[in-house]
């Protein structure tokens, strides 16, 4: 075969190469489409079977400091709750960002559990929020916030909670992408 012949043929041999490239593309697309997670799968995938979960909360982080569960503050009838009513000693949480909260805020009477699971009073459907993520327990000198060994932490400002912390009026804290503000009037 002469050089001329082979160069004339070479010109046409670029097509099989392009074809191979596109076969690769089609195969890769098929492989990716098959493995694409649906939106539902994404929302709940955080601990799919086989994925490692963090071990049970380490004691240092979530020491269950005994906090006495206070009785409802006397003289605060529930129907009087609301952000506009200024009743001394009233405590509530404002949802500042991250999700829609009740317009009146979240009344703080009994301990509140934050998490992804349905049994939490404040349910946050975010894959970065653990099932039972954090707990806020009202107390006479202010409520106590504690992390329940969540993977991504509960944050008071830039500080990741290591142990229980007592909140003061105006404090912000975040669970996942949801930010709360504690009010006491």
């Amino acid at each position: 075969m002469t050089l001329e012949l082979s160069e004339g043929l070479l010109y046409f041999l670029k097509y099989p190469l392009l074809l191979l490239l596109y076969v690769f593309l089609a195969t890769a697309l098929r492989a990716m489409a098959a493995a694409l997670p649906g939106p539902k799968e994404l929302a709940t995938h955080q601990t799919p079977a086989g994925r490692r979960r963090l071990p049970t909360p380490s004691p240092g982080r979530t020491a269950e400091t005994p906090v006495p569960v206070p009785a409802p503050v006397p003289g605060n009838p529930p129907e009087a709750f609301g952000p506009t009513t200024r009743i001394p000693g009233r405590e509530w949480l404002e949802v500042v960002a991250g999700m829609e909260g009740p317009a009146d805020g979240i009344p703080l009477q009994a301990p509140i559990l934050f998490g992804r699971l349905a049994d939490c009073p404040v349910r946050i459907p975010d894959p970065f929020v653990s099932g039972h993520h954090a707990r806020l327990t009202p107390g006479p000198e202010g409520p106590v916030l504690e992390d329940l060994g969540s993977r991504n932490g509960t944050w008071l400002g830039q500080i990741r909670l290591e142990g229980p912390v007592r909140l003061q009026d105006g404090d912000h804290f975040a669970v996942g992408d949801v930010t709360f503000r504690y009010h006491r009037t």
Partner: protein
Amino acid sequence: MAIKARVRVVALFLLMLFLAPVVNLTRLQVLRSEELSQRPDNSRTLEDLSLRGSLLDRTGQLLAQSREGRRVYPLGPLTGPLLGYMTGRLGSAGLEASLEARTAGYAVPRTPKQAWNLVARGERRGDDVVLTLDRDLQKVAWDLLEGSRGAVLVLDIPTAEILAVASRPSFDPATLEADWERLRVDPSAPLIERGTQGLYPPGSTFKILTMAGALADGRTAADEVFACTGSMDAGNFILHDNAVHGPVRLEEALVVSCNVTFATLGQRLGVDGLRRWMDAFGLLEAMPLVPNAAEARPVHSGAPSAAAEAGIGQADLLVSPLAMARVTAAVARGGIDLEPRLVRAQTRRGQETWRPAAPSARRVLPQAVAEQVRRAMAAVVARGTGGAAALPGVAVAGKTGTAENPHGAPHAWFVGYAPARDPEVAVAILLENAGGGGAHAAPLASRLLQQALSR
């Protein structure tokens, strides 16, 4: 909005951005591919220089040739801006650029057709292109311009083939790359081919067209007598003539180049009439077989004097020497116009592979009108301003011109043909800022016509 939702937003945003290069690749590689490939500074087309075909003159002598990967031009500056150049660094210009596709060879095939040719015939070298130039006459034309700036053009009347077109100043293609920076900024424009691309006010040579147009339109008659008082009211200023010619007949007016007469005819034809006649002579259209020729510019000025001035080839009228040669040749043929050409054929190993269609003859002027103009032009050389163009033993016809221009002394013009009775060749001579056409351009015509006829 949680982090993961934002991840989706950012991912989507970035993936959308990828559409931009896809769109632009389509634009550049498919839609604009042709346009970009043909740009003159695109040296890709010139890469396979050693396989490129040659340019030959009408007798088969070499004008441009590929040797050792370079383009070589045996006539050097004689054909400088006409043939142009072709180098890897500077790209291509001139006829070399225009004929690029015909002479292209390929080391590797670029199109399916070339690939197939290679498979079937093993052919790589590009074709040769035969030009209409005569190498010897080109030398004569070049020598005539010694010491001047300007152009000399010789047209074969029966075929409208350009036999020679010389332009000075020129450049030497052999040292082009070294001289490039100087040539590029040289105010005397050595890169411009003046014979076909240079545009100049035609001055009195344009009176041929004015006369022919006015006669053909019935705006005057051969026996009309014009009263020349040495000046006339051209509209918004007084147009002065070179002399007081007194009462002159039309033919005599051309012989003495009477401005008053032809300004009057210009006024009768009007700007539009003159434009129509330039169009009739084919001056306003591109000529496919003279690839880089510049089209003439008719009068655009709206001044009241424009028609009168245009009648004597002034105002803002601009034409190339080739255009004036074409008008002259059409008159010489008895009113028949042929489109000038510079390209004769494409050949491969001596066998013709392409030839342009034979020129189609077009009647521009009635035979009688053409004869009147021819008589007058013969008289111009026999006893008028063009006396210096005369040849012993052969009658010459022509017209001189002295074109006022904003760049200094007037341009000297001469257009003409010979023999006057049975025309063979037409010439156009232009000398930039040289002065009077009768004194400076006409003498060159004499020598040029002699050589052209004895060819």
